[in-house]
């Protein structure tokens, strides 16, 4: 059985208690809502994208420790990056949490590698993924709505 401390790593607990970029953006030009009906997790991601670069990002919503920390770490990881870089991070993150053989490469993923422990808790993968799917939807359209179910 997977160990709890692999899931609730210190960086995840910290971002759950003190989520970064946890606010609405007044001047967002991309937003999306995500929700996980089975858990009751809800998130809205706000983006300000200029010349293909994520200039600012924020999120609102309520969820479990994993989804809140994932949203917080995601916003910290993609701010200032190009949308293409954000898409590559999405792919790397997604591969890490679903594929037991995918490397959790700290060089690519940075602090996001803390979510490698989610692999041992299949029921929680969707919690970690929700903010990323919502970001993906926000980038794909001016506004949208996604669900992980």
């Amino acid at each position, binding site marked *: 059985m997977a160990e709890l401390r692999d899931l609730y790593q210190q960086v995840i607990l910290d971002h759950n208690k003190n989520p970064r970029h946890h606010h609405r953006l007044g001047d967002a030009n991309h937003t999306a809502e995500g929700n996980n009906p089975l858990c009751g997790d809800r998130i809205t991601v706000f983006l300000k994208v200029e010349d293909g670069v994520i200039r600012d990002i924020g999120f609102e919503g309520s*969820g479990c420790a994993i989804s809140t920390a994932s949203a917080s770490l995601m916003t910290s990881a993609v701010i200032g990056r190009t949308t293409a870089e954000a898409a590559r991070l999405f792919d790397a993150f997604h591969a890490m949490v679903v594929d037991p053989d995918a490397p959790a490469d700290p060089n690519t993923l940075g602090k996001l590698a803390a979510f490698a422990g989610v692999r041992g808790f299949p029921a929680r993968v969707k919690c970690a993924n929700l903010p990323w799917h919502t970001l993906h939807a926000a980038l794909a359209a001016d506004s949208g709505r996604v669900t992980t179910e």
Partner: protein
Amino acid sequence: MTDAQRAAMRPSSRTPFDVERVRADFPLLRQRVADGRPLVYLDNAATTQKPQKVIDAMSRFYAEDNANIHRGVYDLCERATRLYEGARFTAQRFLNAAEAREIVFVRGTTEGVNLVAQSFCRPRLSPGDEVVVSAMEHHSNIVPWQLVCEERGARLRVVPMNARGELVLDGLEDLLGPRTRMLAVTHVSNALGTVNPVREIVARAHARGVPVLVDGAQATPHFRVDVRDLGCDFYTVSGHKVFGPTGVGLLYGRLEHLEAMPPYQGGGDMIRSVSFEKTTFAAPPARFEAGTPNIGGAIGLAAALDYVVALDWDAVGVHEGDLLAHASETLSAIPGLRIIGTAAQKVGVVSFVLDGAHAHDIGTIVDEDGVALRTGHHCAQPAMEFFGVPATARASFAFYNTHAEIEVLVAAVARVREVLG
């Protein structure tokens, strides 16, 4: 269980419930989780574990008696048919239905509700008519009614509940108007544990000429049900929630209703004669059992009902009441923990939220101590919305649970915020 039922039980319960003897009947409960701790199974409102007798009855059927039922003239077929139809008599006695013909084998409570919504209610609905449900219904006792209401231009109305999770019945007569065609209500709430005064509700609905379906999925595991005493028109049961197999359940319907209802699905076994011009349908219950039914499941369910009926229900009532009181008291002593659903009449279901910890984190963390809890909205989103919570953690007990297990649960929940830092 009502106070009256409990009071009636207590004085006569001279022998305390021997929970260890009962646990020995359930092989799954012997298992240990990864690090050697015993499994603490507290998700009985989702599904119950099966006694060895149920597993044996199903194995024996497949090993010795399996054939398709009805119509065959050989001995094996007659044996299988006898077992299947015998299961119907067992179900009749279990619910105290007047006749075995009033018992339809279905997949479970969900199918029972859908069958009644489609075959009984739908033909009676005209635009502007109304169907009444309650605020604490499981989605399976909301959505089937919504589907027929949408199709027929009818309206769904809702009996409200109070902050304790009890139905507010003062205004019931106002909801039961001349356009009301059906009232559907749960006997016991899966998310809150509330036991509704179904007998009274049925009497008041009948006084207004409104037929009543009772969702009995969460009632039959906790107390004995007598459909004639309740007076309801329909009563639905899920086999797997009453210590039987999945994929089989019961629909009780008063014969006069079943006889007047059109078929739910078409197929084999539900007809009297078929030609391309005209098909005539079999009488109930066959009319509602198109195709080869879940024969093995019905036989397993009968074994479960026999097992349940043989329990000392006076002692079970006392034991489950004690478990609920123990869990409610010790859990609510945890700082920041709030119990959702505090009705005066409850079965052993404790839904709760904890400040600073989402239900899913609670579920994952207590799992490390071998505690199996359900977390989420329990397929009762309107009820969750009413209490203003996205999700709860829910411990639900069966007669085989112990006070020691509740101690493990409480210690595990008390540790949650420590883990979350």
